[in-house]
């Protein structure tokens, strides 16, 4: 899923300066799971902004809503009436959500309340780690389901390097060496022969930015 974190309050306040009525819009999917922009975070940010505006003697009316996904046009269109009531929208979705909302409502300024960080998975409660770089040419079949492109500090395809130290990485001793994890996984599955092969350097041209995929539904 997409992992994001909220921008510092100061940055958000600067964005919405001068507006009298804003709509804070949450997203019910990835950013709800990573505690950054779901219904709860919308309520917390609203409360903070209300307190701050009261403290500073500013007038600020806040509308709140959270939709299932801000990256789907059909789900955003139903917000038409609410968006029209507001001077600006503060989106608590990832960058994709912010852009989709901005596209559906071209006359209303849409601001991001979050910084979109990476694609990842939960490590434990409240901790998320990056696990996929969307490189466009998945290598996981050769590495026991552990991605060295993102989880190895050097992104090596033929690891481990000389800096592996008792299963930890020389770049950051707090982090696991991805290639040690890969070795152990392949050993467990009796597939170490996969590791004896040499893999040529990555052709990063497989991803053309901006990416676009056209497909037909099965």
């Amino acid at each position: 899923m997409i992992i994001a974190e909220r921008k510092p309050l100061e940055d958000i306040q600067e964005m919405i300066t001068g507006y009298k009525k804003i709509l804070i819009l949450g997203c019910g999917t990835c950013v709800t799971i990573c505690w950054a922009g779901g219904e709860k975070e919308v309520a917390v940010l609203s409360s903070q902004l209300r307190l701050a505006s009261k403290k500073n003697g500013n007038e600020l009316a806040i509308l709140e809503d959270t939709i299932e996904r801000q990256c789907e046009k059909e789900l955003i269109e139903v917000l038409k009436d609410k968006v029209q009531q507001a001077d600006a929208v503060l989106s608590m979705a990832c960058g994709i959500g912010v852009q989709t909302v901005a596209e559906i409502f071209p006359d209303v300024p849409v601001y991001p309340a979050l910084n979109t960080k990476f694609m990842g998975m939960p490590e434990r409660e409240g901790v998320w780690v990056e696990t996929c770089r969307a490189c466009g040419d998945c290598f996981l079949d050769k590495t026991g389901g552990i991605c060295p492109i993102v989880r190895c500090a050097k992104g090596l395809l033929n690891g481990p390097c000389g800096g592996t130290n008792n299963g930890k990485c020389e770049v950051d001793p707090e982090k696991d060496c991805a290639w040690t994890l890969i070795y152990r996984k392949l050993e467990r599955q009796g597939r170490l022969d996969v590791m004896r092969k040499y893999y040529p350097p990555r052709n990063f041209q497989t991803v053309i930015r901006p990416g676009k995929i056209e497909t037909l539904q099965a």
Partner: protein
Amino acid sequence: MKIKGAFSPDIIAFCCAQSAYQAADTAGSMRISYPENIRVIRVPCVGRVDVLHILRAFERGADGVLVLGCHDEACHHLSGNTRAKNRVQKANTLLQEIGIDGKRVEMFTLAPNQGSRFARIANEVNERIKELGPSPVKSAD
């Protein structure tokens, strides 16, 4: 009795029904007085107290918030007190972001028979909030 002109802080105390609320009762039975401006809200467990409850208390004019739960390892719902501790920390961070002093939200733990401890906490917190003065949100009204 409220003296006109003197600052009497509005303090909301979320009290666990298993411990702190009973401690407040014990204080009453023991005839130990505590400041009348501490407003007790009984919750089934402090694990029920959400960051939003704390923030909204300030929105509605509270000068301080107390979260009073069971001692460590004594929560009737196993981890309610630990959750509350984390939420108090989070609420303080959120309040600090908007310039509301972090000492305005505090958590203490106590047992149902600790009536005098309840009164002591209530008095100490009351004095501290008095020194801090009214919540900056309230004084801007």
